[in-house]
């Protein structure tokens, strides 16, 4: 792919803190390389702001290799920008052209309040995990291979569900701000394996109850979450969670 430089107009959401009113601010960046990542372009902009004595734009980032799920940016109307199965850090500037205007906003959801600029508080996800997304007993050292047979299909589906990085793009993209894809991935990865079986029922009931408490919206099966998920988590997980929830709800004594 041919390398090129570009000049861009950025419109970025600036908000001092959780209580302050925010607004879109315009910035110009020059000579951005098409080989930069979107976050590197933001680094250039922030250095510009620091040199000018302005407050740099606050944004979440950590691994910058597409696996930590931190870089939450809503770019030109889409979670993590125009590419599919992609995080913001892995979005490269070749997705844009010279002279483009790019609008960058934080995730929008009642459950994800803005902390500053583009940083949102995603601890609602942590509380959903704390409600049941774990195995209570220590499973010990790695056991001998094949001493605990697991169907290849279940192992694969569990692994695919476990590839969820908890970035929140599903919530950001959903018309209802529903967290069903995230919660269902976390329910599925354990429900499919024998280690997760003993707490299977209480897990799904508690995690869904916590999800509802966090004021996420309800799922209406638009499947926007699957389309925007950087890891391609399937909505089949949502169906699995619905099954788990239904059967756990029917057999629970409470």
């Amino acid at each position, binding site marked *: 792919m041919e390398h090129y430089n570009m000049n861009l107009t950025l419109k970025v959401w600036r908000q001092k803190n959780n209580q302050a009113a925010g607004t*879109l601010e315009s910035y110009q960046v020059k000579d951005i390389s098409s080989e930069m990542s979107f976050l590197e372009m933001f680094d250039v902009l922030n250095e510009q702001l620091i040199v000018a004595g302005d407050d740099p734009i606050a944004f979440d980032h950590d691994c910058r290799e597409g696996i930590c799920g931190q870089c939450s940016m809503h770019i030109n109307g889409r979670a993590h920008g125009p590419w599919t199965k992609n995080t913001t850090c892995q979005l490269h500037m070749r997705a844009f052209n010279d002279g483009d205007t790019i609008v960058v906003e934080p995730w929008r959801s*009642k459950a994800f309040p803005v902390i500053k600029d583009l940083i949102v508080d995603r601890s609602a996800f942590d509380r959903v995990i704390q409600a049941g997304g774990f195995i209570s007993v220590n499973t010990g050292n790695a056991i001998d291979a094949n001493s605990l047979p697991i169907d290849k299909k279940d192992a694969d589906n569990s692994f695919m569900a476990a590839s969820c990085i908890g970035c929140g793009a599903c919530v950001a993209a959903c018309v209802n701000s529903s967290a069903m894809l995230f919660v269902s991935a976390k329910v599925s990865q354990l429900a499919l394996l024998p280690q997760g079986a003993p707490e299977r029922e209480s897990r799904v009931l508690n995690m869904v109850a916590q999800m509802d408490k966090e004021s996420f919206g309800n799922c209406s*099966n638009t499947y926007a979450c699957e389309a925007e998920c950087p890891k391609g988590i399937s909505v*089949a997980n949502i169906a699995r969670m619905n099954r*788990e929830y239904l059967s756990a709800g029917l057999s629970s004594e409470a």
Partner: protein
Amino acid sequence: MGLTGLFLIIFLIVHCGINSMIFFNDYGETFNHWGHLMGSNLIIRTVEIGLFVFLLLHIVQGLILWKQNSSARPVKYIVNKPQANSKWYSRSMGLLGTLILIFLVLHLYHFWTPSRFGGIADIRPLEPTTLADYNNQEVHNLYKEMQLVFQNNLLVVVVYILGVTSLCWHLLHGFQSAFQTFGLNHKKYTPLIKAVGVGYSIIICLLFALMPVAIYLNWIY
């Protein structure tokens, strides 16, 4: 939402099936016969109450979801491209449902109210001996009522077509969505469910739309 929706989907099959008998071109004879059979059957009358209860539940559930979902994102995106990740009708079920409800009020006023509370002309069947069930009995001439409503009334025909079109979009999402809600998402069966859902929505709504059009244009008698 899924459970009540599936019940309404089954009701539409019966409704559309019986109404399609007007296409037999026998002055509504077969249609009126079946209409009478449904209207005079105690089981069907009981299910009708269930139908209204389920319809009401479907609406109430929809309103609760709409309220919860619209409050889940108090600050909207300034730039948003939902068309990149989902179908417009899957995001517009509340709007489509409201349009269907408005249409339904008119529809019930046209047919259900007069058939329940009088106002529809009665006829003797053309061939009473062949249809033993209403032998020598006068039955509602629902077919005549259809002609009265649709003939020479372009506006009503257009409103019906719009109502049925809304229903079609609503079903295109609703049919497959109900199965996902019940946890049925399967590599083998989901493509089949989706195909059946598309076929069902289009066939049912085409047939429904064809009825007022055919009567208005005097294609059937």
